[in-house]
């Protein structure tokens, strides 16, 4: 075992606890925003990344006219899902992937101190890093292959949430709740 969270200096354990708490706070507010403005289904993800389904363009430009009442303009006020086009997805990938890597790395360092078997350690570290890969693979495949791949993005998100939750619970338990002999108390 590279190190043991339970035997760390109290200040180091407090630092890790604050880090995990800060991640959790960010996730809580994210959840609030989702509850207010968005859904959680692959269909909604597909709308965000794939955009509206395209109908084959006609041979010549076609024009249709119809009368409409003033009240019909209200339909356009419907709050829209943020459409992520290719340029924006390039930028999102560039900006988010490094940050996801840093978060996965920090959580992996915590995993190393959990006292797990090498097999479980490999498993958790793989989960932490594969979740963002799954997430962004889903976005790109949704845009360029099929909207059905939106399920990968949703799965990636849940995998990331699952990974964080497991690591946070095990770390807090290891650092503060396990009855170990400590000399630094």
């Amino acid at each position, binding site marked *: 075992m590279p190190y043991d969270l339970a035997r760390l200096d109290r200040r180091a354990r407090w630092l890790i606890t604050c880090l995990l708490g800060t991640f959790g706070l960010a996730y809580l507010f*994210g959840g609030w925003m989702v509850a207010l403005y968005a859904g959680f289904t692959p269909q909604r993800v597909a709308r965000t990344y794939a955009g509206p389904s395209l109908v084959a*363009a*006609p041979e*010549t*430009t*076609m024009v249709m006219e119809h009368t409409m009442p003033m009240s019909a303009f209200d339909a356009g006020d419907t*709050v829209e899902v*943020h459409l992520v086009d290719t340029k*924006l997805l390039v930028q999102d990938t560039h900006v988010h992937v490094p940050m996801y890597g840093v978060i996965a790395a920090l959580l992996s360092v915590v995993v190393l101190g959990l006292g797990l078997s090498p097999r479980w350690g490999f498993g958790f570290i793989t989960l932490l890093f594969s979740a963002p890969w799954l997430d962004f693979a889903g976005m790109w495949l949704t845009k360029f292959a099929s909207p059905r791949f939106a399920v990968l993005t949703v799965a990636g998100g849940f995998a*990331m949430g699952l990974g964080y939750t497991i690591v946070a619970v095990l770390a807090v338990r290891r650092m503060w709740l396990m009855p170990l002999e400590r000399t630094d108390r």
Partner: protein
Amino acid sequence: MNKLVLGVVLALLHITPTVVLVKREDAVRTILPAATGFTAREVRLSGADAHRLHEALDWGPDDGRLTFYTGRRGAATVGSLTFVRVDTPHGPLEVAVGFGTNGAVLRVEVTKATVETKAWVLEAVRSGVLDRYAGVKGGPGADVTAAPKGPALPGGAATYRGKVGQMAAYMLEQIDKGVLRAVVSWGWFYRAG
């Protein structure tokens, strides 16, 4: 636990909620106050037309359709307008651009922004920039070479440098992008249609 997972999903969706700054109905009343009836003209672009629009503006409507609204009072046409969406890294922006019967821009309204961009957009609008679009002419027909290459705003957005904050200036450029799209597509597919 559930909230944590929901939060992660949000982070992955990168959603920036849209906010309505001016209801479309209110924008229509402001731009074409004399109109009592409306006709929607839906233009479904051919592949060739969609391509030349994309070549000119690096843009095309999401679903290949442009919609223009003609305002009438009795049998007389009083003007027309269209709504154009601009996708920015901070979320979508929507402008309503109205045209007089002479083909000149009557008025521009910003109808939608996002939670993130609202303050910047409002600062840009308060600068009075929208008033300066009045009189800008639409493209003269279906000639692709006649499409304006520069900004729709007379003098360009650079004239506002230093007068508004950096992000407001950025949103001002996005507004201008929307107006330019409206002006060009109106000239090509409404007046020439």
